[in-house]
């Protein structure tokens, strides 16, 4: 039913996934000693930046975001400001949640905040791109009958996958294996990125296989 959209989604997801891959490989060529564990924060920032840039540009080019009624400059500006504010709030929100889950409060606050930024770029940014700075819509999307397009469904899947990935990433931390990826926040950020990649693959696949059952209310 939505073959065109599924194709667009699959290709855009492929672009995002490949850019995560590039963000891991390319800096290793230019920066000596670059590795996912060793210079973890650097890798994390690379991935964050790559995902942010590519997501924004892909969704802007695709024009998924809801058409705005008024196209005045001031309206655009206010949307931009609101988006930035939401991104910041989302970083703080994730930071708080991660601390509540047991991350150290004061020491390694930078690592925790970096993880929050990564999670924001994986989840909130996509929400912003798909739904615009509209918290009501965000809340609406995450319910069983809340999705109104294939993009909403894919948003549900990727966000859930990234968050669950980060949650699962906390599991190996207490183990006494003394591996480099057990250091905070390596396992969690790896988990969320892997979860996100899974979501990128799973979303078009799931939608493709369930396209007969999917029905969306019109807006």
């Amino acid at each position, binding site marked *: 039913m939505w073959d065109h959209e599924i194709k667009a989604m699959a290709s855009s997801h492929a672009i995002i996934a490949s850019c995560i891959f590039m963000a891991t490989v390319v800096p290793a060529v230019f920066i000596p000693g670059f590795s996912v564990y060793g210079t973890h924060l650097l890798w994390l920032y690379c991935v964050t930046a790559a995902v942010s840039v590519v997501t924004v540009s892909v969704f802007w080019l695709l024009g998924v975001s809801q058409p705005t009624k008024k196209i005045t400059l001031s309206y655009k500006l206010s949307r931009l400001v609101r988006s930035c504010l939401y991104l910041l709030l989302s970083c703080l929100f994730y930071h708080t949640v991660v601390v509540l889950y*047991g991350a150290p409060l004061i020491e390694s606050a930078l690592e925790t905040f970096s993880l929050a930024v990564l999670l924001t770029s994986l989840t909130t940014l996509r929400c912003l791109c798909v739904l615009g700075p509209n918290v009501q819509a965000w809340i609406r999307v*995450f*319910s*069983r009958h*809340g999705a109104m397009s294939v993009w909403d469904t894919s948003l549900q899947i990727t966000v859930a996958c990234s968050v669950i990935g980060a949650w699962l990433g906390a599991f190996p931390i*207490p*183990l006494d294996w003394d591996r480099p990826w057990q250091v905070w926040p390596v396992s969690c950020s790896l988990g969320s990125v892997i979860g996100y990649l899974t979501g990128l693959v799973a979303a078009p696949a799931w939608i493709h296989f369930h396209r007969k059952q999917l029905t969306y209310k019109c807006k």
Partner: protein
Amino acid sequence: MKRLPVLCLLLWLCALFYVGIYLFVSGFLLVRLEVNRTSACDDVLQPGGGGVGGGDGVGGGGGSRRRDFCGAKPRFRRTLLLIIDALKMDFARFDPSNKTPRPYENKLPVLEEMTSLRPAHSRLYPFRADPPTTTMQRIKGFTTGSLPTFIDVGNNFASSAILEDNIIHQFGKIGKRLVFMGDDTWENLFPKKFQRSLPFPSFNVKDLHTVDNGILQHLYSTMVGEDWDVLVAHFLGVDHCGHRFGPDHPAMGHKLTQMDGVIRSVMERLHNDTLLVVMGDHGMTDTGDHGGESQKETDAALFLYSPTPLFPGPPSQSEPEVVPQTDLVPTLSLLLGAPIPYSNVGQVLLPLFPADSQTEGAAAGLSQLEALWVNVKQVDGDIPRSVQAYLSSVRETCRATWARFNPLKMAAGLVILALACLLCFLVSQASGALAAGARGMLTVPVATAAAVAACAAAGQVLVRGRVELAWCLAPAVFASELAMLQEPVSPSAFKIHPVLSIPQVAPRQSGSAHLVPLLVAALRCASLLSDSYVIAEGRVVTFLLLSLGLYVPVRLHWDGHLLPPPHEPQKPPAGLLPPPPPAAAVRREAGVLLGCLGLLVGAAYLSLSFHACREEQGACQPSPFLSPLSRMQDSRLKNVHYGLSLAALGLWTHLLRRWLRHYGNLNASGGAVWVACRVLPLVAVCLGLHWAVSATPEDSFRNLAELIGQAQVLLPRAAFALLGLGAALLWADPLTIYQRMRRSLEDSEQPGGREVDTRPAVEAYGLGTVYSAPLLLLCGLLGLGLLLLHPEGMAVSFLLLLLEMGALLHIHAAATGLAGLQGAHSGDFSVPWTPVVLWSLASSQFFHATGHLPTFPSIQWAAAFVGFPGGHAGTLLPAALVTLNTFSSHILFAGIRPSVLLSTFMYNVWSLLQVLSCVCAAAVLRRHLMVWKVFTPKLMFEASGFLVSSAFLLVGVALVARVDLAVGRWFRRLLPDPTRRLSRLARSNSTRQVYSEFAAI
């Protein structure tokens, strides 16, 4: 009349589980076989060591030398064993370059002076203890020369006589006159072995001076006399000081200085033929505790001195770096000319023996291994290294193979436990039906059990001639379980019982609703199988609790229950859909849900700061709230902590009363209300005063010392008495209903009453919470009592516990309410597993957040002295107090459980599953490196926690049954006989109200 059968069923299930645990534990916990053989003088040189025979050294055949051994003149005629409990190696070292010593450093200069001035006469060694480093095990270890076993730990306060061959016995046999003074543990271990003994009570940890001063009164006069050969003096002051104040406290400095003086005076009085041994039996951690196997706990000090030259020369390269504690036994035996005790596995301390004489170091292995005898001959300095290595390897082999499991018993225990779990689950699924027909149901299983037990006993008598309890119980319980499984559950008997199975939701539910709570439950069970997760259990449990808590609103929102449905302009025709629920109500419920979730998350997060530390957690700082106020030295910090504790205590009391007032229970008059208004605040005042008194430094109010001492006894006892009184009153009169006769309609506050007749109507207040109010009061009383047994700082943690309990209940109620409001079937969201798992996770979480850990050294022994600073006569009362202290979180969460949680049985299934996974962990990983350090203590704590919480669950259920009875009577009194039907109607009304009450609280 269905209360009794339900209680019976619960008891029966618990009994099944107790038997299963008993069977498993009796097969799992190692029983060390004590060998009752003793060495004799003529054993010593029995050949059998193989190639090391020969006629070198002393020469002569075996026969002539046998008699020589005990008859020969030993190197020392007398020895003075000065044991300073918990004399850590750090205390004994002296570092002259240290200009700013800590209170425990550089306080024993005498040792350093002697070793440097008279190197041939004295030596200081680190003295390594084998875990467990508890005093009784250590005394056993360094008198028998063997290794203590795990099971011995439990006997620490009921020490029984040593039956194994030991050095005291050997000294007695060769005619030494033994004198003992100090720690009365010795007297229990060696009854009637001493010519003269002056035991002093050891159990009172707060008492720093009684034992030491008692020893000092008699020590010097005894020493001067000639009527002793072996004198054992066991000082306890240092250990008690560590337990009370920690090593880093000025009191420790004073105590060590006193010990320094003692050692000096003893040295002055020594004769030339006397050997002085100053030793610690174990060390202590930085908090002053011991029992584990960290190096801080195992490294004690050993100091040897004699007025005659003891060592052939100054310290050389061949000096051992560390002396194991088992080595003291053969060394002392040989120095004093006694045979080495049979079960010794230590080796002689070689530097003490001159190179040209001969020494015998003998090691006896285990009975399982075969007795091993080795003679070490030191001829011309040619020490056979291989023999030393051999002796060391025997020691290691003993350590490794001490374990002997009984796999049959373990398997039987596991099977019974698993079956009990299954049964409990089945019962929980059909609890209503079982409640109705329970009486008939239990007859067959119980009869089967009795019959099978009798058969098994008879069979055992016939075949083996004696009865072993475990093998009677195992078949009996197994048969009983099978009989129960055969029992048909008749659906016609399905009746909802008002107390135990009210919100029993139909088991048919959508699978996805169960998925996440069951996943969390599975994760929790799986985490018990890994030592890392058991070590980090406090955090793991909090993590899972938060995850499941956050899942509740997410799930609700996913199902579209959290927000009011959007207002749609094109409304579907009425009649097809139920009318949309009022948006305001939904919003309010959602607000309550989210607010309580915030409270839950906050309480769970803050509770992380009350954790204690396991020794395995390297960089972990125990919570500052855990140390009692009397240990704190900064007086400002002390005041802040005290103020915080008082505030928490006040809030605890206030919140309870506030809740009762909110639901109108305080208007009534009666026992329960009196308890809430009078007893509760009074107990709180007692608690606050008690904390203040126990926190006052001993030396600040000299003239008030007697008063303070009395207050320390009286205040907690008064609190205990008040709590007992409160509980009795609560039991006697649990109703908190305020009734009022309404004469006419004008009095009525709410208009719209339809009955216009002038018959007097009855208004009852507080009926909605008639069941939960007494339970909550009981919980409040219990909480205060348990708080009394904890360090003061834990008051904050207890407050968090109360808040979290409330938050959990409100979340459950709001979630159910929201699902109901949105027109969904009310059972749709109230997934029975979510609250059950949440509740139990919270209980485990607060086990950790009240400063407890599933390890033996972390047991808070101080709880035994609350109200009894002078110590106890028996062991029952202190054991009970310590148990209450340890499992306080289990008790509180179990006590209030029957009123609020879905099914008692459901909860039981879950606790059983946790115990079962602990049992599995211990069984599967029984050869794991960490089995004795992590899994076994965890199993013991989980099993005892289940035991205690099931006991208090029964108390709670009994209280609910009592309230039920009282409510029934109240209705009957209200509506006399002719209106019997009406009464039943009212009764069912009350049941419905209970429903709403569950939703409300």
